[in-house]
């Protein structure tokens, strides 16, 4: 009796499953599911995120930083001062991008290249890994060239980073950014040329279009520089991304904000800034 019951239940279950079985033959080779869209922008706040521009997409960024909050009401708490960085980033192919930029008050021109080595896979490889190389050259005036001690290579500095990011869930992404900044010329006595720091960053989506971002760079060997904490909001409105942030660094390029920050949050060295980015599809 039990056996008959078993057979009948088998028959019934096979009938119930008939519909799903129809599609099950399509699922024989389950495809690798990559995890996309770890961050909204190519930067977390100031530092690079693991996101690259897609192939053929040109991104124009206007970055703006005001003065420190503790500069008093005479300076409208820093809003009287401002500096700008303009940059263009272009997606060369699906796994690499190239960018150039210029910072106004620093008079530094920079170029960077990001290469994605691998992507996070659902129930597979845990990280998206991107390497970032950047070079910076400080502009000079003709009067400086005439000086005897002028050497072109002294104007250069470099940043090398390996970025590891993981989308923990659909709202939260965390990133580790070990960084080396190399200066061809350092300004202070006993200052090291290679500065190591370790960055941690992340984003938490608050709504479909707004996310809270944070990043922290811890100085590993040059303790004269402050650790850098930056907080920001990304607001996406379709073609534009607006980023509003607060940081204890006023600079926008890696060697300056990571390894040349002196102010501390607790002393009121808090700088307000914003980025506006717009993408253009140049090539399909």
């Amino acid at each position, binding site marked *: 009796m039990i056996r008959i019951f078993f057979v009948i239940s088998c028959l019934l279950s096979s009938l119930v499953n008939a*519909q799903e079985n*129809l*599609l099950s*033959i399509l699922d024989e080779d389950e495809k690798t599911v990559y995890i*996309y869209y770890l961050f909204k922008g190519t930067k977390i706040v100031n530092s690079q995120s693991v996101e690259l521009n*897609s*192939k053929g997409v040109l991104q124009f960024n206007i970055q703006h930083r005001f003065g420190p909050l503790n500069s008093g009401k005479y300076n409208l708490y820093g809003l009287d001062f401002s500096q700008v960085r303009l940059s263009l980033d272009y997606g060369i192919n699906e796994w690499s991008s190239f960018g150039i930029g210029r910072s106004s008050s620093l008079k530094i021109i920079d170029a960077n290249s990001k290469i994605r080595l691998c992507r996070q896979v659902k129930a597979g490889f845990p990280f998206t890994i991107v390497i970032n190389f950047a070079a910076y050259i400080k502009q000079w005036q003709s009067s400086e060239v005439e000086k005897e001690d002028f050497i072109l290579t002294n104007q250069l500095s470099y940043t090398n980073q390996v970025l590891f990011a993981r989308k923990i869930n659909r709202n939260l992404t965390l990133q580790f950014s070990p960084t080396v900044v190399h200066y061809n010329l350092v300004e202070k006595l006993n200052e090291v040329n290679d500065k190591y720091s370790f960055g941690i960053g992340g984003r938490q989506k608050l709504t479909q279009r707004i996310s809270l971002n944070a990043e922290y760079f811890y100085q590993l060997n040059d303790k004269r520089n402050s650790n850098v904490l930056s907080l920001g909001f990304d607001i996406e409105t*379709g*073609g534009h991304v607006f980023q509003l942030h607060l940081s204890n660094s006023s600079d926008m390029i890696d060697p300056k904000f990571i390894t040349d920050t002196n102010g501390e949050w607790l002393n009121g060295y808090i700088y307000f800034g914003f980025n506006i980015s717009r993408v253009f*599809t140049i090539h399909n």
Partner: protein
Amino acid sequence: MNRINIIILFSFLSFQIHAQKYMGVNGEILFYSEALLEDISAVNKNVSAVYDATTSELGFQLYINDFIFPKALMQEHFNENYLESDIYPKSTFIGNVLDIKDKEALVEGDLTIHGKTKKIKLFGIFINNIDSVYIEAKFNVELKDYNIKVPKIVMYKIAEKIEIKVKIELKEIK
């Protein structure tokens, strides 16, 4: 008793083997939407389908993130904000061919998009050759039926009704 069990089991297995089934994996689904600034279209060339001639069951399946858009940002918004492909990676259709006349068929079944299922009924081209089946169809879906929300202020504002074109050739499974 054991023998009966085995016989029943075998009869089921043999039924599975002898069922005349067709399958295709390189189908194409194109969707088109009129929008304020520019029309939006995308194509998915990895659509797969099965047709069981003995039961006239017809099934389609695709991965949402296989849709290719002319602009990367549209693709991002499509996956992230509209279709939420991380939660609902697949879209499926499971139904039956009710009637075949000449080269046209009436199909009815459940279309699942964005985790929501709705019954649809449509006519399409259905050419059943000896070892293959060719299917072509055109229909509309309404975003509200599948709980796809379009924000009020957005650059790529899309229409409430989306036109979908399907094209696939299925080969007999030997």
